[in-house]
C-alpha cells in the first residue's frame, strides 16, 4: 500500500474552518462543538487543552476520521481521514473510551486490528513492546479499562509510518504502561508526524512543546513550552507528600521567607505530632528558593518526605485566564474601533469644512466663517469663488461678513 507523501512545504495536518460536534451528550446529542477551527501542523507535538464541552472530543473524532465535520475540511497528508481507508490505518489514536475489535482473545484482536496495516506487524510483538505479552491469551471482555487502554496505546504506537497521532488524555489511567515510556514514544513520533495530545490537564500539556487552548469551540490562544503561559503568572507551587512529621515540617517551613503560603491537608492526625502524615501545598515567588526551603525544613524537622511534585494550574484557572484574555482582546478591539470611528468622523468633518456648501455657505459643522463668523486667527479666509473647485458652474459669491440680513445674489 503506497502512501502519498506530503507536498514539500505543505503541513501534514490541515484543518480549515471546521465545524463539528461530538455525540457524547445524553441521547447522542452534542456535548462539545467546534466552531470554525483552523489549524496547520507539521511534524511536531502540540497539546490541545480544554474540556469536552470546549470541543476536545469533537476535535479528536474528526481528526481520526470517526465523524465527518459538519462544515470545513480536515486533511491529513492531503487526504480526508473519514474517507481514506489507507490513511486511517496510519492514524494512531488513543481514545478516551478505549475500544478494541472484539475477538476470541487479545492476541486475535490485535491481529485483527493490524490486518489492514501496510506492513504486517506480529500481534505478539505489538504487545511485547510494552510488556503486555501476558494479556495476549486473555479474552478481550475480561480486560479492565486500564488494560484495554494499555493494549490500545501499544497498538497506536506500533503503527508503521504513522501519518498522525491523536491521543485523548494520553497520560490518564496509565497503570500498565510506564508514563516515561509513553512520553518518549510520543516524542519520537513527533519527529516524523504531527502528534496532537488532547487533554484537560494543563500539567499533562506541559510535556509537549506547544499548547493550544481550545475554549468554547475555538482555538483561543497558544503558548510555547511550560504551562506558565496557560494561566496567569502565579507563584511557584510545590506539592509535598509527607509520611511522618508533617506538622513539624509545616512549622519549619513557616519560618522560611521563601514560602509565602502553606496549605496542609493531614491524612492521619495522630496524637503524636511527629507521626502526622499529609500533603502540603507550598507556594512562593521562586520555585528554586521554595525547593531549597523545603529541603532545609525537611532536614531541620526530621520529617519523612515521600515525594515532591511541581504544582500546575488547573483547567479552571486556564479557562479563567483564557476568558480574561478574550475579554481584554474584545475590549482592545472595541477601543480600537471607537478610535477609528472618531478619526473617521474628524476626517469627514475636515473634508466637509473644505467643501463649500450651497450658495457658497459653509457646510454644517464647518469652520465658522461667512455669516457673522470671523476668520480665525492665522487661518486664511477661503476665496469666495474657486473656478478650480467649481468647474464650469456659475460663479457664486459668498456673502461678506456683516451682511447677514441680505439675500445672496442669484
Amino acid at each position: 500500500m503506497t502512501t502519498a507523501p506530503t507536498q514539500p512545504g505543505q503541513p501534514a495536518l490541515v484543518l480549515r474552518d471546521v465545524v463539528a460536534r461530538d455525540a457524547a451528550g445524553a441521547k447522542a446529542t452534542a456535548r462539545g462543538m467546534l466552531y470554525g477551527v483552523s489549524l496547520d501542523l507539521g511534524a511536531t507535538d502540540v497539546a490541545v487543552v480544554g474540556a469536552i464541552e470546549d470541543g476536545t472530543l469533537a476535535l479528536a473524532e474528526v481528526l481520526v476520521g470517526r465523524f465527518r465535520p459538519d462544515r470545513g475540511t480536515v486533511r491529513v497528508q492531503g487526504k480526508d481521514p473519514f474517507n481514506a481507508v489507507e490513511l486511517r490505518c496510519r492514524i494512531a489514536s488513543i481514545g478516551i473510551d478505549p475500544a478494541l475489535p472484539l475477538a476470541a482473545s487479545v492476541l486475535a484482536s490485535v491481529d485483527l486490528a493490524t490486518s489492514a496495516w501496510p506492513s504486517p506487524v506480529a500481534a505478539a510483538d505489538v504487545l511485547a513492546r510494552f510488556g503486555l505479552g501476558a494479556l495476549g491469551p486473555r479474552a478481550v471482555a475480561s480486560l479492565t479499562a486500564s488494560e484495554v487502554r494499555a493494549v490500545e496505546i501499544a497498538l497506536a504506537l506500533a503503527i508503521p509510518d504513522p501519518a498522525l497521532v491523536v491521543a485523548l488524555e494520553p497520560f490518564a489511567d496509565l497503570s500498565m504502561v510506564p508514563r516515561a515510556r509513553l512520553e518518549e514514544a510520543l516524542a519520537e513520533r513527533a519527529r516524523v508526524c504531527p502528534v496532537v495530545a488532547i487533554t484537560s490537564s494543563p500539567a499533562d500539556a506541559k510535556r509537549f512543546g506547544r499548547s493550544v487552548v481550545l475554549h468554547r469551540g475555538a482555538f483561543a490562544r497558544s503558548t510555547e513550552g511550560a504551562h506558565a503561559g496557560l494561566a496567569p503568572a502565579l507563584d511557584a507551587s510545590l506539592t509535598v507528600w509527607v509520611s511522618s512529621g508533617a506538622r513539624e515540617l509545616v512549622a519549619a517551613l513557616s519560618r522560611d521567607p521563601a514560602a509565602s503560603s502553606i496549605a496542609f491537608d493531614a491524612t492521619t492526625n495522630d496524637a503524636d505530632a511527629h507521626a502526622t502524615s499529609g500533603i502540603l501545598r507550598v507556594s512562593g515567588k521562586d520555585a528554586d528558593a521554595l525547593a531549597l526551603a523545603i529541603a532545609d525544613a525537611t532536614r531541620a524537622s526530621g520529617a519523612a518526605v515521600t515525594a515532591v511534585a511541581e504544582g500546575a494550574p488547573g483547567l479552571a484557572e486556564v479557562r479563567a485566564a483564557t476568558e480574561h484574555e478574550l475579554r481584554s482582546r474584545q475590549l482592545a478591539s472595541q477601543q480600537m474601533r471607537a478610535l477609528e470611528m472618531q478619526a473617521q468622523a474628524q476626517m469627514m468633518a475636515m473634508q466637509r469644512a473644505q467643501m463649500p456648501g450651497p450658495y457658497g455657505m459653509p457646510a454644517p459643522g464647518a469652520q465658522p466663517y461667512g455669516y457673522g463668523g470671523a476668520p480665525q486667527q492665522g487661518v486664511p479666509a477661503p476665496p469666495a469663488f474657486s473656478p478650480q473647485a467649481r468647474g464650469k458652474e456659475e460663479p457664486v459669491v459668498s456673502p461678506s461678513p456683516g451682511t447677514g440680513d441680505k439675500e445672496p445674489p442669484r
Partner: protein
Amino acid sequence: MSAVVSARAGARMAIARLQGRAAIAVAFVALVVPIIVALVERREATAGASDRALSTVFRFVVPLLTFSLSQLPIGGKNLRDAVWPAARFGLHRGFVALGHVAVGGAAGAIASLLAAVVAVLVARLGAPSGPSDMTLASDVVATIWIAPLVAFAYAAWFGLGATFGRSGGGRGYVLLADFLVGSLGVFGVLLPRGSAYNLIGLSAPLDVPQRAASGVLVAVTIVCAAVCALRCKR
C-alpha cells in the same frame, strides 16, 4: 484485498460476539419452540400438520430468531458505531458491516433451518399423511433451502435497519413493518415475509410466481446489504 480483509475482520468480530450465552439461549429457543408448535399442530390434526407448523415457524420463529442473532453481533448500537473499533485501524467500514451482516445471516440461517426441519420432522414422523401432503423428504428438502434464504433476507433488512437511529433502532421498525404489512402488496414483495409465504405455499403477494419469489428474496438481500454497506461508509 482490503475488502476481503475488512469483511473477514467484521465476520470475526461478529463471531466473537455470538460466542456467548445469549446465542446458546437463542439456539435453544430455535429447537424447543418448533417442537412445541409441531406437537400442538399434530394434536390438532395430523393431516397438514407440517404445513401449519411450518407456517407458524416462518410467521414468528424465523423473523424473531434472525432478529436476535443479527442483533447480537451489533449489540445495542447503530451498525456504524459497531464497526468503528475495526474501522479505526484502517479497515473498510462498509465491508466490516457486511461481515457483521453475513455472520448474523448465517447464524439466523442455521437457526431457522434447524427450527423448520425440526418442525417438519416432529409434525410428520410416524403420523399418517393427508391426501394433499407432500412427502416428508420433499418437505425437508424444500425447507433446507427456503429457511436459509429467508433468514439471509431478514438479516440484510435488519442490518440496513441497524444503520438508522442512534442505537440502531431502525431494525425494530423493520421487524414491526414485516409483522404488520410484510405479506401485503408491494411490501410483501420487498419484505421477506411475503416471499417466505409464497415459497412455503401460502399467499403470493402481487401474484408473484413461486419460482420468482426466491429470485426476489436474493435480490432484496443483495440490495439491502449493499445499501447497508454504503450507509456505513458515509
